[in-house]
């Protein structure tokens, strides 16, 4: 249960993910996630990993590369293709005191474990008092031309289930700090990584193995006066880009990164609306009964007196994420769409 000494140089088998940082010490989102897993496994030997192809292969996205050599097959478990039982295994071992972190090869395949997730994992503690410190993680999201079965944003389904905290980080440092918090949390947590961000975004991340980010705390990523853009995940990056562009045009947009979608940090959201009086909610999850709907409804109910314009929503339609670039681009909210929506709101 001690923290491993940092090994310099490129990470290989059994070497720390920190070795995969850039030369100036920055970590991609993917490496930050690997660091969080590694450090928590060093810290607490109740933590173990399970999932398809995470051991010998190091995971479809190589998040757990090198883990098998360092932690051995008792703590890095390659499983059969049986998602219901991946979840059941996590639950049963958590009941016996372990702290499992299960990887879904893609978040899309969480639907294959849906019953154990929503019927057992989400409801067991309320009915029995037995804590289930289980983390389910996996790559979600689109924008990488991976079509319907490798692009889903399942957060609305699981945020609705109740009893599972749902985290969707947008930045490496958040991903690291939030995943560590998730693993230390005594409740079930779903940790949805975004595959479009994995290798695209990098930044410095904390070295202190006890540096945590709090769950259910949103963060204002960019201060602004005219319009609040409430969003999370990959859309944070699109929103920031749109806000930059609009700054030059004299429109000041605030960008709030929810980070955790359930339970929601209503306070930070509402405080932003109090300031700007205008809200644009952007989500990559489908529009109808999506996270955006919840955020918009919350603002409409609780910040009504502050609103100078309708609460606008920007989300994809509820249909399978299409493959063709022309279709996927039309499907996902783009920087230009966000810009237009902000302009429209600020002109209200």
């Amino acid at each position: 249960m001690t923290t491993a000494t940092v090994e310099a140089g490129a990470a290989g088998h059994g070497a720390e993910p920190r070795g995969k940082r850039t030369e100036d010490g920055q970590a991609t989102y993917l490496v930050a996630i690997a660091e969080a897993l590694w450090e928590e496994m060093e810290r607490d030997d109740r933590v173990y990993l399970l999932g398809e192809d995470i051991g010998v292969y190091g995971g479809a996205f190589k998040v757990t590369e090198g883990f098998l050599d360092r932690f051995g097959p008792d703590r890095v478990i390659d499983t059969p293709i049986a998602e219901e039982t991946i979840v059941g295994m996590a639950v049963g071992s958590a009941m016996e005191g372990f702290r499992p972190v299960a990887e879904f090869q893609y978040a899309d395949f969480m639907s294959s474990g849906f019953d154990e997730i929503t019927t057992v994992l989400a409801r067991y503690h309320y009915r029995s008092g037995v804590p289930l410190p289980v983390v389910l993680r996996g790559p979600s999201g689109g924008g990488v031309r991976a079509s319907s079965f490798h692009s889903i944003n399942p957060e609305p389904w699981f945020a609705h289930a109740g009893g599972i905290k749902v985290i969707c980080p947008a930045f490496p440092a958040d991903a690291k700090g939030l995943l560590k918090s998730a693993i230390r949390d005594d409740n079930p947590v779903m940790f949805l990584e975004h595959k479009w961000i994995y290798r695209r975004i990098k930044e410095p991340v904390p070295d202190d193995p006890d540096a945590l980010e709090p769950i259910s705390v949103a963060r204002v990523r960019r201060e602004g006066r005219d319009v609040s853009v409430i969003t999370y995940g990959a859309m944070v990056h699109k929103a920031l880009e749109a806000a930059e562009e609009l700054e030059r045009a004299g429109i000041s947009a605030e960008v709030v990164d929810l980070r955790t979608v359930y339970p929601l940090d209503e306070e930070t959201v509402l405080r932003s609306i109090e300031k700007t009086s205008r809200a644009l909610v952007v989500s990559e999850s489908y529009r109808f009964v999506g996270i955006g709907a919840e955020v918009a409804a919350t603002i409409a109910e609780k910040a009504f007196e502050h609103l100078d314009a309708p609460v606008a929503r920007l989300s994809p339609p509820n249909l399978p994420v299409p493959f063709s670039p022309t279709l996927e681009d039309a499907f996902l909210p783009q920087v230009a769409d966000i810009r237009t929506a902000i302009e429209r709101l600020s002109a209200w």
Partner: protein
Amino acid sequence: MATKVHRAAKADARPLPDERLKEILYFLKLARYFDERMEALYRQGRLPGAIYSGRGQEGTHVGVAYALEPGDSLFPTHRDLTAQLTKGLDLKRVMAQFWGRIDGYTRGRDGNSHIGDWYGAKTFTVMSHLPIAYPVAVGAAWAYKRRGEPHVAMAICGDGATSNGRWHEALNWSAVFQLPVVWVVNNNQYAYSTPNEREFPVPTIAERAAAYGMPGVRVDGTYVLEVYEAAKEAVERARQGGGPSLIESVSLRWRGHAGHDPATYVPKDLLERYMAERDPVRTYEEQLLAWGVVTKEDVAELQARIEREFEEGHEFALASPFPEPGDVTKGLWVEDGYWRSEPGRGGGTEAG
């Protein structure tokens, strides 16, 4: 139905000391009495919610659960309350659960046999979805193996539940990892109204063990000692590192699927034959009498004790308050501390 002849009966062997044989009789008779009385209360409109009778299957339930040690865990279904009682549930709290009271194991959050006691009797709090606890048992068994602990997980489900994908996943996984788990199928010949031949295309479930490279055995669920011996063997094999096993224990569901179901789809003569010839409680009682393990007086005493315990439980349940309405959201998150604190006992009335 081609179950084997009672092994124990044939041999006239007593697999356990007399005191334990007597304890088994206690659980069998308790189960039967509880089942009958609760049904009566249900019919009188004095019991809320649902009841899922285990009558006729007491041999299966007591037999498998009695083979477990306190450190072993049990993952049952709606039908398996008798197994949970055998594993150590407190009748008082069970009854408080049926009446939705704060002293029930789920503090009123769930009802009837959707019950469990992880920190005491080490049983999983039952969920309806079939057989949703099978994959969970995999995880508990894995934990024992990983830690080198001499514990075993046992999961029970019905004949119908074997048609579900989870059943296959759990058996397969447990065999790939050679986990200390015993898979029990309570084959009571019906899944609600659906007979065996509409659920699976082979004569027995036990033979499916071969598909998982594990031992499988079919036993007569109306004879508790046969069930017990098979379960014991499987449990000890698992405990010694011998991996998973499958036990199919065959009896007949005497009552409907739930309290409302007259079960007219069960052929009358089949039911009558079972009730007349294969009553797991009566035949076992007769066996113990024949063996001289108990006297008629012992049996009467046992029965009196059971009736007393039932009345005490009933009184306890009715005296236990309803949960406080204001607590409805408590206990969802660990950090609210609800499950670590004494429950609020201000209560409320059913009228609300």
